[in-house]
């Protein structure tokens, strides 16, 4: 079963106009790489120059901030949901 990646609207333009994508991978980083391979422009807004999470977005795996786990190395289960949220919000 693939993993669902949900993007904020501001990134839809870089992802074929869609905010919801199905992807595959054993880790959050793998899933991001899978989607980025289809939408290279999107990849530059999800990953930094060294492959790390892009600083202006936050990744949540099944509602948990991946920074509390293993970042992009966090394992994902089949059917998981990854939500990407702009980092500039709240407060």
């Amino acid at each position, binding site marked *: 079963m693939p993993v669902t990646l949900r993007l904020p609207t501001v990134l*839809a333009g870089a992802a074929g106009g869609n905010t919801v994508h199905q992807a595959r991978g054993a880790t959050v980083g793998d899933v991001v790489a899978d989607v980025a391979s289809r939408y290279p422009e999107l990849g530059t807004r999800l990953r930094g120059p060294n492959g790390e999470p892009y*600083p202006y977005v936050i990744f949540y795996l099944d509602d948990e901030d991946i*920074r*509390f786990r293993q970042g992009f190395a966090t394992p994902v289960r089949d059917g998981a949901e990854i939500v990407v949220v*702009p*980092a*500039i*919000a*709240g*407060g």
Partner: protein
Amino acid sequence: MSSSPAAARRAPPSEGSPAPALASLACRSCGARFDPGPVAVCEACLGPLEPAYGPERALPSRDEIAPRPHSIWRYREWLPILGQPVVSLDTGFTPLLDSPALAQALGVRRVLVKNDAVSHPTASFKDRVVAVALNAAAGLGIDTVGCASTGNLANALAAQAARAGLPAWIFVPEDLEVAKVVGTSVYGPRLVRVRGTYDDVNRLCAQLADRFGWGLVNLNLRAYYGEGSKTMAFEIAEQLGWRLPDAVVAPMAGGSLLTKLDKGFHEFLDAGLVQGRPPRMYGAQAEGCSPIVDLVHRGGDAIRPVVPRTIARSIAIGNPADGASAAAAIRRTGGSAAAVSDDDLVAGIRLLAETTGVFTETAGGATVAGALSLARAGRIRASDEVVLCITGNGLKTIEAVQPALREAPVVSAKVREVAALVDA
């Protein structure tokens, strides 16, 4: 470039009050420019957007500001609402109180308390940012507003949206203090309590902004909203007789207030309204949620988020959006930051009340306790004139301080029973 999430549109708030024009937006990171809109992040790089003020705009002199009404709008040239605001006209210009007793406690030359515990209409500095955001909403024709809040923002938005006739969806953590829940519900918004921390609420609201097209004041209207905090700096400068203090201490939650205070002081310097050095900026957090203090002391520019564990719920943001900006302002101005225990912040509440006659909430207690810690460590200097930004009212968080207070004795209506107390 155009803004992405389309928000619902509505007519201007009342006939005869045309919707105000808004400043265009620019990315703080890459400089890309955007038309006014309900969008807070750059489409090009996802950096934060800020209003782009025209450098050619006419700025008022001290004498031109002086006769204006005592509200945040006396500084309207530095706010992103172009022309006349149409709602929330009477917020701002809270007292700046001299506190010799608190200065003595801190061991510094002078302490002034910027008292937003009596802010109008809901007794916190969030009245300022909401006033700006609702005028932005009017300018954009947005018909429903909302926010993610730790309490004070919920109060401010509920009250001001009610007055403006706007439906409001307000999201708060489930375990918020009773006074903040009641102080929101009474105005009749759609209040929703979310299981989890503020950071969970914030994530949810970031998704809701996309889904429903609401104007969420601290999310997609954030570029306008945040500018309201600068008015606290403007007022401090004017109330000091058009000059700047040596040091300013503020509580830090998302980090926006401290960042905008610093920006406000610099804008008045740039305008020639004040002279000298910008104040050193100092930030205070509770030990149980201190990711910005951690960044200040650790160095670097990446926040390490935490799960908040503190009674200071109004500043319990474990993933502060402007944390890196606040840390940068603190370092750039030569200031510092302190994290204080929950016991110490309760002691700070009592110290402010007993020395200054101001009852503040837990965030204010953190500010006072943080200032005390920073002064004892020599980070704030004995020769300093210090302004403490007291951002909220203690009546909203009485459960935090009540256990620390002496229980009042109960007597019969007899003189001898009172005499026994006097002699005790």
